């Protein structure tokens, strides 16, 4: 442990840094807690594993059409952005937003909205659950 | 004491304010039984006599008499608490039944706290006067302050007694 700066201005600076650090710790801990809760809820709701999602997003081309937070290169402009999906009332303006509907929509969008441009990608049910878990956890 | 006096006065004002709004007073209750409250009042008034003596002895720095006086006043501090325990049921109402019950209990509680505080102070002073710290000008000053405080406790009770027991009978 090194000694503290002796000069008054040094101590004042230290104090200021500590205050900023404390505020940062406060905000960071709060955000971490919220994310933790959100992720836990998303997992239990969907029964999917968000860890597997990034790879699936790329494989099925989701990231080519959608902007998806946290997925590298996912800045597609064809479909609607998928930010804050858990807050939405309807999925694609058609389906009530709940985990079953989201999974069903990802697997076969045409069966709910015949005119939609979103393709049936051939994704499996479990993979779709992983995606749903990821999207709800954001 | 000015602070507490204002507090007591305000509690009486609240009592009268609530009364002025009520269609009938007391609200859904019989007027309080007089026995416990009146004997407590009599006891408090009577306790002023030894209290005034105690104050005089303390001024004269008479250790022996002050010791006796403090013991007497300790007992006279405990007795009203026993009577007070009978006063709460004599009100025929509980604090959570209506606003009348609330203010009555709060007034009684407020005054009981003061009796209790003074009693504890008296007890501590009694111990002190029997210890090596006793024979000392400052302690005698404390005793007369304490006696003064008891006067205050008794005197403030009189308007509260009138308010609690006789106003509902008007």
């Amino acid at each position, binding site marked *: *442990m090194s000694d503290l700066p002796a000069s008054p201005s040094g101590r004042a600076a230290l104090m200021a840094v500590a205050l900023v*650090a404390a505020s940062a710790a*406060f905000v960071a801990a709060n955000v*971490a807690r919220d994310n933790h809760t959100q992720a836990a809820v998303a997992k*239990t709701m969907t029964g999917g594993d968000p860890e597997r999602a990034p790879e699936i997003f790329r494989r099925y081309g989701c990231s080519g059409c959608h902007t998806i937070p946290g997925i590298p290169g996912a800045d597609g402009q064809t479909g609607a952005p998928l930010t804050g999906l858990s807050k939405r009332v309807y999925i694609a303006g058609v389906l*009530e937003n709940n*985990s079953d509907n989201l999974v069903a929509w990802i697997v076969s969008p045409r069966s709910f909205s015949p005119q939609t441009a979103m393709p049936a990608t051939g994704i499996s049910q479990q993979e779709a659950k992983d995606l749903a878990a990821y999207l709800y956890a954001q | 004491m000015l602070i507490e006096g204002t507090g007591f006065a305000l509690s009486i004002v609240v009592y009268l304010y609530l009364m002025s709004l009520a269609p009938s007073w007391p609200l859904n209750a019989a007027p309080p039984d007089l026995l416990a409250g009146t004997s407590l009042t009599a006891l408090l008034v009577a306790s002023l006599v030894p209290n005034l003596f105690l104050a005089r002895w303390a001024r004269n720095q008479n250790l022996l008499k002050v010791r006796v006086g403090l013991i007497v006043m300790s007992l006279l501090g405990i007795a009203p608490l026993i009577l007070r325990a009978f006063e709460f049921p004599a009100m025929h109402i509980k604090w959570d039944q209506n606003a009348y019950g609330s203010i009555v209990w709060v007034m009684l509680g407020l005054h009981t706290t003061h009796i209790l505080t003074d009693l504890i102070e008296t007890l501590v002073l009694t111990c002190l006067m029997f210890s090596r710290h006793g024979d000392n000008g400052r302690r005698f000053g404390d005793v007369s302050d304490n006696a003064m405080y008891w006067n205050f406790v008794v005197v403030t009770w009189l308007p509260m007694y009138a308010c609690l027991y006789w106003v509902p009978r008007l």
Partner: protein
Amino acid sequence: MGTESVTEKANVNPASALMVAGLLLLISSGGVFGWLRQARELRLDPPGVSDLDRFRLMQNGISGTPPESYFALGKVYESDAYNLSQGKRLYSWFGCAACHADGRGGIGPSFLDGWWLYGPEMVSIVASIRDGRPHGMPAFRDKMTIEQIWQLAGYVQTIGSYTPKVAAPSRNDDKHTRPAENRGPAKILFDEGPAGVHADQGPSP
């Protein structure tokens, strides 16, 4: 050189040590408060609400398990003061008092006497409200949203609880009929505990 710095480190100025301790305390308490902070949720995410419908009930309709997301949320309908007091408002808005009065019961069973026909678990109460029960309890499935049902259930559980909850709402600005929820009316009024079999109140479990 080396020895010098060692002795310097050994003789840390107590004031500095104190200051360092204070600063660390400041930063760590920032973190602790941040973690403990839980904002009041005025709007739950729609998928989360919809998930509340997916609890599992035992065959006999008594007891079961809530959806797992309920635990992930921290059992908010039992412990969160805002939800409990919303539940209390729903209790009067949806006319529960018509049958259950202030919790003492009337046409419907009492909540205060410690006797729960279907058990005191949240899922049982939620199921009773949502789906109704034989002998007169109507289903509120089409009258309330599932989130409201959970809020109401949390409140109902609170009235009948023998250990008053810290987060429980207090009295209403109404006529006083029984001790308020935060004082544990069940405990005050029925201290002797569960009141035995109520043959008149539907099937006993």
